[in-house]
C-alpha cells in the first residue's frame, strides 16, 4: 500500500502521460465512430448552401489565436471551402488577436482560394484591425472609417469587392470564428441589425451563447472542434476536424475514468486515515 501511496504522490505525471498517450493512439488507431450532426451546425450549412452566388459578400472574422487554431480553424476552413465551392464572395477580417493577419494568409494558402478566386473581386483579406469592441462597433456603422487598406497594402476603396462597402447592409451575413473571447463584441454590436448572424466559438463557450441562440440573436453556430467536424461532414471537405473526433471520444472517456479513479483513491486513503 505504501508503494501505491508513493504512486499517488506522482499522480500528476501518470494522469498527464496517459492523456498524451491516449491522444496519440486515437490518431494512430482510428475507431471511425459516426458523428451526428446537430441542429445549430445544420443551420449554418443550410444558410450558406442556399445563399445565391451573386449575393453580397460574407464577412468572416478570424478571431482565433495560433494556440486556439486546432479547435476553430477546421470550421473556418470548411466554411471557406464551402463558400468557394458555391461561388460566394467573402471578406476576411480579424479583431480578436494580432495573429489574425498571419493566420489568414495561412488559411488562404491551405484552402486553395488563390487557384479559384480572383483577389479583390471574389475575396479580400483585410487582416487584423486593432481596437476590440470599438472597431466592431465602427465596422457596423462606418466600415471605411477603420479599414483603409487590406493586408497586402491595397486600398479597400480601390478593390472591386470592398469599394462600395459602407456598413452592415453591404454584407449578406457575418460569421465570427472566435477563440480569443471576443465573440460577445460581435453579438452586442451586430445582432441588433437585421443581418444573418452565425458563429463559431469554443466548446467551452457554448453554454453561454446558447442563450443568444435561443433568443434568436444567433441564427446558428458551430461549437468547437465537434462543430467543425460536423460542418466538414455536411460539406464533404473532410479534414482534421473529423479525424479528431475519435480523440475527443477517448479523452471524454478518460475524463470519466480519472473522475472515478480520483474518488476511489480519495475514499481508500481517507478510510486508511492517510
Amino acid at each position, binding site marked *: 500500500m505504501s508503494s501505491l501511496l508513493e504512486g499517488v504522490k506522482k499522480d500528476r505525471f501518470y494522469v498527464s502521460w496517459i492523456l*498524451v498517450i491516449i*491522444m*496519440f493512439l486515437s490518431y494512430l488507431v482510428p475507431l471511425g465512430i459516426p458523428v451526428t450532426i446537430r441542429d445549430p451546425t445544420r443551420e449554418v450549412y443550410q444558410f450558406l448552401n442556399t445563399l445565391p452566388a451573386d449575393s453580397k459578400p460574407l464577412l468572416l472574422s478570424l478571431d482565433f489565436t495560433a494556440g486556439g487554431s486546432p479547435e476553430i480553424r477546421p470550421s473556418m476552413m470548411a466554411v471557406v471551402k464551402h463558400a468557394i465551392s458555391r461561388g460566394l464572395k467573402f471578406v476576411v477580417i480579424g479583431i480578436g488577436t494580432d495573429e489574425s493577419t498571419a493566420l489568414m494568409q495561412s488559411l488562404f494558402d491551405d484552402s486553395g482560394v488563390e487557384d479559384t478566386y480572383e483577389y479583390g473581386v471574389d475575396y479580400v483579406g483585410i487582416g*487584423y484591425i486593432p481596437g476590440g469592441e470599438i472597431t466592431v462597433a465602427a465596422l457596423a456603422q462606418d466600415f471605411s472609417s477603420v479599414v483603409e487598406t487590406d493586408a497586402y497594402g491595397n486600398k479597400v476603396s480601390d478593390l472591386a469587392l470592398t469599394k462600395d462597402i459602407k456598413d452592415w447592409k453591404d454584407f449578406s451575413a457575418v460569421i465570427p470564428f472566435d477563440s480569443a473571447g471576443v465573440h460577445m463584441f460581435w453579438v452586442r454590436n451586430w445582432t441588433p441589425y437585421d443581418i444573418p448572424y452565425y458563429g463559431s466559438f469554443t466548446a467551452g463557450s*457554448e453554454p453561454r451563447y446558447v*442563450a443568444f441562440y435561443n433568443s434568436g440573436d444567433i441564427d446558428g453556430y458551430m461549437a*468547437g472542434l465537434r462543430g467543425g467536424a460536423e460542418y466538414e461532414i455536411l460539406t464533404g471537405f473532410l479534414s*482534421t476536424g473529423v479525424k479528431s473526433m475519435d480523440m*475527443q471520444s477517448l479523452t471524454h472517456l478518460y475524463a470519466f475514468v480519472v473522475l472515478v479513479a480520483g474518488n476511489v483513491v480519495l475514499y481508500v486513503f481517507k478510510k486508511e486515515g492517510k
Partner: protein
Amino acid sequence: MLEPLGTWIALAFTVMILSFGLYKQNRFFRFAEYTAIAASLGNGVVVAIRYIYSTFVEPPMTQGGLSILYLLAVVFAALLFLQFVGEYRWASRYPMAIIVGVGLGVAARTSLETEVVKQVWAAMIPISGSGMDLFNALLSFVITISVLAYFLMTPKYKGNFSYLLKAAQAFLFVGFGAKLASAIPMYVAWASGRIQFILKVVGLM
C-alpha cells in the same frame, strides 16, 4: 532548406514547452517561454505599426492636409509614452480617458439591447402547451427568476427566501456541470494541434 530547419525548430519548442507538463519546470521551458513572449509581442508591434502607418500616417501624406483628428491622434499617442516618465505619468490619463470613454460607451449602449432587453424577452415565453413543453417553459421561468433574484436581491439564508437561494444554487450547479463538461473538449482540442504536428513529423499522419 528552410522547411526542415523550421520543422526542427518547431519540434524543439514543442518538446520544451510540453516538458513542463510532462516532467517539471526547467531551463528549456523558461527559454521557450521567453521566446514566446518576444515573438508574440514582436508580431503585435509589427501589425500595429503597419496599421497605424496605413490608416493614420500614409493618407495625410499622400492626400495632403492635416485633419484635427490627425493632430489630436499624434498628441494623444505621445502622451501615452509619458507613463514611463515618473513626474508626468498623470498625462497618460488623457489618452486612457478616450479609450475608457469610447469603450464603455460602446459596451453599455449595446449591452442594454442585446443582453438585457432581448434576454428578458426570451425569458418571457408563454407557459402553455402540454407535457415537456409546459414543463420546460415553467422550469425556464423559475430558473431565470431565481438566478436573477440570487444575484440582484441577495436573499437571506434564513426564512422562506432561503428556499429561493437554495433553488438558484442548485440550478447554477447544473449549469456549472455542463460548462465543465464543455471545457474538456475545448482543452483537448487545443492540445491536439501539437499531437497532430508530432505525428506528421514522424510520418505517422
